[in-house]
């Protein structure tokens, strides 16, 4: 009937085509601005779009943004595909892989912010909320590439400028949301169900925002100690995550790691994390990883990073998959991480509301609690366990054995040097932040901890851990002048080895 009407109308419509044509030229299954405004949907839709980039759990974005890059370079996981010998570990990843986070995430982040800016003022609480989520997304991107375009005009900002800009945005957002939450701690904003992280509970978002500031402060502490200290102390003062209930976890389904590791079989445990967990007798070993499908010398076996794989169907069986279900929430920041950040801050002499030892132990404790692991007290008292020597699975790929590379122990020893204390904090922090590998890789680059096995075969650069991912090579064509300027800001070659601003 509708079609007949459309037909009849359009026959009469030569003179007044335009309105009718607009109805005809309307694609099914799409919406327009007016429709998106209903139920306050459009604002929440942008918050959700930003969350999808800040916490990219969808399987393809997960794989391209986190699994291939942070998880492999951060030595949580490694690949098991025979055709993936060009990868980030070996620092020769295909252009499409290297450019993906930049090409895919940034336009989506910018578009969401643009759509919000079209509708609300910058002081609107929704805009402030979006600024927090955007900061999380852009932090991951700048920590991947270095200098980064943040002003939507194609120009790159130095990494230091990116950090200060994001911190300023967080200050602005938290300056507005903080008092709102103080006045109404139970404040829920927007369509609660669309916020997959905190269900619109703004008190938790404010806590997350300050936690993000602390993450950034610790990251920049070698590059800009004064700002780092000020930001960190202010963040702790305002309140960072202290309970696992505040963890940033998205209930996006299916879990990205479930797809890449369990379902697709692209990713398996890396030998590094397996050797630490095995050596420490860490109960999290079997909580993080499944027993191997093919029985081997140990229940959980990791695969050496950079190993050349002969047959995926063999490798999938020899090495351990991540122990996740499709419904497992993806975790992107934890109370444990915050305790470790504070422990490191305390070590640096910052006012972190506790001693380094106390905060370190709280961090391990929070992680055990988060994973439902038992035996925390014995674990924290363990003064002898070391990283295990690694032995490959029978018929495994890559080097057959590695000797341990670290002699760090678990229990805090106040008499240790600061450097050894840092290694202890970061090693445990690294173990606790699983499975968010981008942070793991950042810690490896920033502190050199945990100590990891040498790649075999070696990467083209000879290094074991890349310092960054090269810019999108298409930038040299599509954005030439700005790309040249970015190279100057980078202060080194546009390759895997030029250091981040915050690396010491």
């Amino acid at each position, binding site marked *: 009937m509708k*079609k007949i009407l459309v037909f009849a109308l359009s026959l009469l419509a030569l003179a007044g085509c335009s309105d009718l*044509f*607009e109805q005809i030229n309307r*694609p099914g299954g799409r919406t327009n601005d007016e429709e998106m405004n209903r139920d306050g949907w459009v604002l929440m839709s942008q918050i959700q779009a930003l969350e999808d980039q800040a916490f990219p759990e*969808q399987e393809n974005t997960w794989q391209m943004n986190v699994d291939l890059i942070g998880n492999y370079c951060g030595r949580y996981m490694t690949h098991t595909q025979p055709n993936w010998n060009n990868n980030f570990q070996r620092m020769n990843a295909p252009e499409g892989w290297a450019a993906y986070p930049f090409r895919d*995430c940034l336009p989506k982040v910018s578009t969401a912010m643009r759509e919000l800016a079209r509708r609300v003022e910058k002081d609107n609480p929704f805009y402030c909320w979006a600024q927090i989520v955007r900061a999380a997304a852009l932090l991951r991107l700048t920590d991947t590439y270095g200098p980064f375009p943040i002003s939507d005009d194609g120009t790159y900002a130095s990494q230091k400028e990116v950090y200060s800009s994001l911190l300023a945005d967080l200050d602005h957002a938290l300056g507005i949301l903080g008092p709102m939450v103080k006045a109404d701690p139970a404040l829920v904003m927007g369509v609660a169900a669309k916020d997959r992280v905190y269900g619109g509970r703004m008190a938790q978002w404010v806590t997350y925002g300050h936690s993000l500031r602390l993450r950034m402060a610790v990251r920049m502490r070698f590059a800009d100690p004064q700002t780092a200290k000020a930001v960190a102390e202010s963040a702790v003062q305002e309140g960072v995550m202290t309970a696992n209930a505040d963890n940033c976890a998205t209930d996006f389904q299916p879990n990205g790691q479930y797809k890449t590791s369990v379902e697709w079989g692209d990713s398996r445990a890396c030998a590094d994390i397996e050797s630490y967990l095995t050596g420490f007798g860490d109960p999290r070993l079997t909580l993080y990883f499944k027993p191997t499908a093919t029985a081997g010398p140990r229940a959980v076996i990791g695969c050496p990073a950079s190993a050349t794989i002969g047959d995926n169907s063999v490798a999938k069986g020899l090495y351990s998959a991540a122990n996740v279900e499709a419904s497992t929430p993806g975790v992107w920041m934890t109370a444990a991480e915050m305790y470790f950040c504070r422990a490191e801050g305390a070590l640096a002499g910052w006012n972190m509301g506790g001693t380094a030892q106390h905060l370190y132990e709280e961090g391990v404790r929070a992680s055990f609690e988060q994973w439902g692991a038992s035996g925390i007290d014995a674990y924290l008292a363990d003064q002898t366990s070391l990283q295990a020597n690694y032995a490959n699975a029978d018929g495994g790929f890559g080097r057959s054995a590695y000797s341990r590379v670290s002699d760090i122990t678990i229990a805090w020893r106040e008499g240790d040097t600061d450097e050894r204390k840092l290694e202890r904090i970061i090693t445990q922090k690294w173990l606790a932040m699983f499975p968010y590998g981008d942070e793991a890789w950042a810690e490896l680059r920033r502190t050199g901890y945990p100590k990891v096995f040498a790649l075999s075969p070696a990467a083209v650069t000879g290094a074991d851990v890349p310092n960054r991912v090269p810019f999108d090579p298409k930038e040299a*064509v599509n954005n030439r002048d700005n790309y040249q300027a970015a190279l100057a800001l980078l202060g080194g070659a546009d390759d895997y080895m030029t250091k981040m601003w915050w690396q010491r």
Partner: protein
Amino acid sequence: MMKPTAVRSSLLGLLLACLALAGQDLRAQAPVTGTVRDGFGEPLIGAGVVIAGTNRGTTTDLDGRYEIVAAPDAVLEFSYIGMASQTVPVGGRSVIDVVLTEDTDVLNEVVVTALGIKRATKALSYNVQKVDSGSLTTVKSTNVMSSLAGKVAGVNINTSSAGVGGATRVVMRGPKSIEQSNQALYVIDGVPVTNRNNGETGSIYSNPPGSEGIADLNPEDIESISVLSGPAAAALYGSSAAQGVIMITTKRGREGKVTVNLSNNTSFSHAFIMPEFQNTYGNRPGETMSWGAEGTGTGFDPRGFFQTGYDIQNSVALTTGTEKNQTYLSLGTDNARGIIAGNTYDRYNAAFRNTTSMLDDKLTLDFSLSFTKEKDANMMAQGQYFNPLTGLYLFPRGEDFNAVRTFEIWDSSRQIHVQNWNYGNDLYKQNPYWVALRMNRTNDKRRYMVSGSLKYQPAQWLDITGRVRWDDAVSKGENQRYASTHTLFTAGSPYGFYAWTRTDDRSFYGDVMANVNKTWEDFSLSSNLGTSYALTNYEVNGFQGGLRGPSNIFSPTAIDHRTPHNDNRPSYTLTLHNTIAVFANVELGWKSMLYLTLTGREDWDSALSNTSNYAFFYPSVGLSAILSQMFRLPEWWSYLKVRGSWASVGSPIPVNVSSPWNWSYSSSNYDYQASTTKYPETFLPERTNSWEAGLQSQWLGGDLTLDATWYKSNTYNQTLYRPVSAGTGYSQELYQSGNVQNIGLELSVGVHKKWARFGWDSNFTYSMNRNRIVTLDPENPDKIIAKGGLNGIGVILKQGGTMGDMYDYTTFEQDQEGNAALDANGNIIRKTLSDNPIFRGSVLPKGNLGWNNEFTLAGVNLGFLVSARLGGIVISQTQAILDAYGVSKASADLRAAGGYPVNTGTITAEQFYSVVGGEAPIWQNYIYDATNVRLQEAHIGYHFPAKWLGGRNLYVGLTGNNLLMIYKRAPFDPESVASTGTYYQGVDYFMQPSLRSFGFNVRMKF
């Protein structure tokens, strides 16, 4: 058989019929009788018989008989539409039988042009090529368009490698549009039809392609096809016509007794060009690549996997009619299977057409109804994901393939059959039989077309015609993947996967036209004025997802709907498009030797809604001069015409681009998303301006013909997606710019000679086209647009290039002496050139040749078609991967030669191909010249004399297709295409081999 120009004149016949009714001559003496027949002995009904020098005459009856009273010294003139007239002196005889032969006199030819308007060939200012039904029905294929390949100049026709039922790629005078379709427009009996072409694929991960709407036609219902290759010819069709038009004229009933045509075409096919394999070196234990010792091979030959395909087409057609009412009725069946198990194509056609004239022939009603039921299954063109050929071609050569022939085994605990495959899952290989038979894709379509035309002719010089067509195709697509299929393809479900879609593809077209034909002394006017309305409605509904369990329940309720996401999701598309137009066409003639044609059309197009201007106008102008009438030419130079035209054809921007409904649903995050594309302030319609000049010549009374056309077209204001830096906050920018130029030549030379019982018809066509991107982005001349390809190689569009330029991002790392450098392990190094890829050539052909011959001797006819493509390149990743897996003949040859020589000695074939071949090859090894020459078609047949069979006609023939590859460099058939889209051409990634077929056909008429 093919002619450069077209339909025969009815003018002479009409004239004679009028004369026949005129007065009596008193000198008439004796009655003369006889029969008028055509070359096949068929009686000609309604042929004119006139006494020369008088206006007295008669017409033949239903048996072709006439009777006329004439003086013994009189001369009789016999004439019939489409036949050469004959004059026969009576010479005192009382019985005169006459055989009329086909008219090759171009002066009186009439051709069907745009909108079904019939015009004199001599007045045309552009090239029209006609193919008659014989050329389309002798050597048949499931898609009638495949039969047109090589027979028309200026048209490139490529058949998809998808197997039986596959779509075709029909591109005329080069690709013009960068983002929009470059496929020709199809027109049936003057009315455009929607040709939904599902033959497009874009990458190695793409879903397999489907068929296309035009393949629904029963070739037997086609009377003839006219090809309007240039925009000037097509200008009256408006926006869709810039890419050229294929005009299909269907059969209608004929006056006379009931005639029944029966036909059967049966052909059997097998793989034509296959890669060259080795089977002497097996695999080392525990490996899936075949790099084992010599002599360990099991002698496996992948050819054994392919079955003999067949294609059986039957048709029965009935025509009957009186002077006032003619009826055509036909039924057709086409049952085919491909060379890969599971690939089938079944089509059933019914067509009815009735033509009635009323009110003293002032009103003519033409009504037709056709119904098509088509079911196709498991078309597969190429790629990694749904392709049995990866598992087949790469099968480890030391293993026993018989073990995988039992492709499924009973799992007693699950109570289902599960896949039997233990030879690696790299490239997502699975058991080839499983992929072919347990990952089923079917499409079941029912299509109705109803059309009617009413013509009212109040005066001899005026008629008003109205036409409508309703076309409704409903199809159900299903995708059934059985439990134990690799979970990448089952949305992770261990129970299997199911997808269903219901596609409703409807279109309505209506027009009204007033046609004026008037002559004043030296001047003639032929003019049309009309308006048209077209609405298309394309709707897809469905759902796909992993099964919830139990296994292998393939119904919409069995899908796991709980969490819609990327793999479990609804499919929904609704696209409407409406065009309203007014158009006019004026042809002015002077002394039947000089013609000026002007056309204009204004379109109001819904695709341009929400832009500053939703209407656009485009004109054309053309001039045709019959020099052979203006000047005295030598006797042997029978005919010479020159023509020239200019046209400006617009086309709208892609549908829905400018719509404010631009928040699209994303199943991956289960919400509507804002577009990350930057849009311009407003849009302009795309525009193609073209020039065309040609000449048409005949010598020796039409024994020798030449038709030549030169053209140049420029397509402006293209709607392009321009890559932008993500740093601008957008992923891409839609902008309008560009100027794509095509310059080319179309040439056809014909011989049409009859010596008593022997006849030779030969037609040679040559076309060349030079495609050039004159500008892509004037603000930014260095701008490039990458258009996909394979890993490390792809098409890049840039100013000064063509739309098929292939750039290679890979090369050998060289040492200081320029030799291949080696790494620490002694391996060759693949170097990636991300900023500066190397141009390797264009996938577009430089030229195409076709040479079609038809010999007749008494009742025997023999024909063959040789076709050639000149220039261009193709690339084969199949070969690269076969090399890396050690299963290619090349890999065995290199092993036999002791390895690949390098500076330091040699490296093994395995070392060499592990870097040079494979998924990320060094491409220069796998780029081939696409030039090829083949014997494309051949047939021989015999017309049994009608008198042997009591007046019935019987023809029996043998046919062959793709019989012989005379010259080729690529390791696959370069004319076989993976995709019918503009890009992803010349790319082989485990493409299905093209087919060679042999068959026979039988035709009977009584």
